[in-house]
């Protein structure tokens, strides 16, 4: 049942912002500011920074990130479906989620068989 008013949501967001501001605003106002160029340089264990950070590295790391993203979002979709399914368990809901899970399961099997993550 859709909530008739969105008031609780607005209050929730507003209180969140207040708490965050409570920490940041006094710090910004009262904190002394003594900036110098050395302070703005990146911290490298007490040495001058060497080399530039954007170096082309192995695409495997990007691969791991993408795989994580896929399966994490999958779990994110499961939660609302579960809450909704518990109130009104219908067969059609099961079929849809079954289809969703089989597709992702196939992807998982493919990744494991391809030994993509086996590069330690």
């Amino acid at each position, binding site marked *: 049942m859709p909530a008739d008013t969105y008031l609780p949501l607005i209050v929730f967001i507003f209180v969140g912002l207040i708490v965050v501001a409570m920490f940041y605003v006094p710090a910004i106002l009262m904190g002394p500011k*003594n*900036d*110098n*160029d*050395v*302070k703005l340089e990146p911290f490298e264990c007490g040495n001058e920074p060497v080399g530039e950070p954007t170096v082309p590295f192995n695409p495997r790391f990007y691969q791991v990130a993408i795989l994580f993203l896929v399966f994490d979002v999958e779990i994110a979709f499961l939660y609302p479906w579960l809450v909704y399914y518990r109130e009104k368990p219908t067969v059609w809901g099961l079929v849809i989620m079954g289809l969703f899970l089989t597709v992702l399961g196939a992807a998982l099997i493919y990744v494991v068989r391809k030994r993509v993550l086996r590069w330690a």
Partner: protein
Amino acid sequence: MSKAALEPVKKKFASEVISEHAQHGDETLVMKKAKIQAICEFCRDDPAVAMDMLSDLTAVDYLMQGRETRFEVVYHLYSTTRRHRLRIKLPVGEDGAEVASVTGVWKSANWMEREVWDMYGITFEGHPDLRRILLYEEFVGHPLRKDYPIAKRQPLTRREDPVEGIWEQKHILTGPSAGAHFRGSYDIE
């Protein structure tokens, strides 16, 4: 420190031996520096001597004692199988202070030779990367030489060095005396 370690080496490199003594039980051979690599390889490979570990490598500066060759590079060898030790000393003159490197024979010599170069200025020709190990590259001179004064500092940075931005001008306090210049007492009570 049995004699067994010293005799084979003395027999094989008789021409190289300058003198020999066993002060306080430490078998020592003073030899010419020319063939040090061959001597060390012999010490390590010969089964009777079997010095498979270079325990210590250092140098001594005899400037004050008025010897004709100023430096002396000292090798302490040890055998983990025979359990005996040998000390080899190479007199090295001041001009052209150069000794052949033994990093090929034992791997532990690498850093020790770099330290002797850093502290005494004796170069080890054939060393993979002979650079300063304990001091910073900008340091001029070799501090453990007797003629290097103990308190001659070569600071990399001091308080009045300008940091870009806030510290540009000379710092407002009185001159940088021995660090005791602002002992302000805080009257807290």
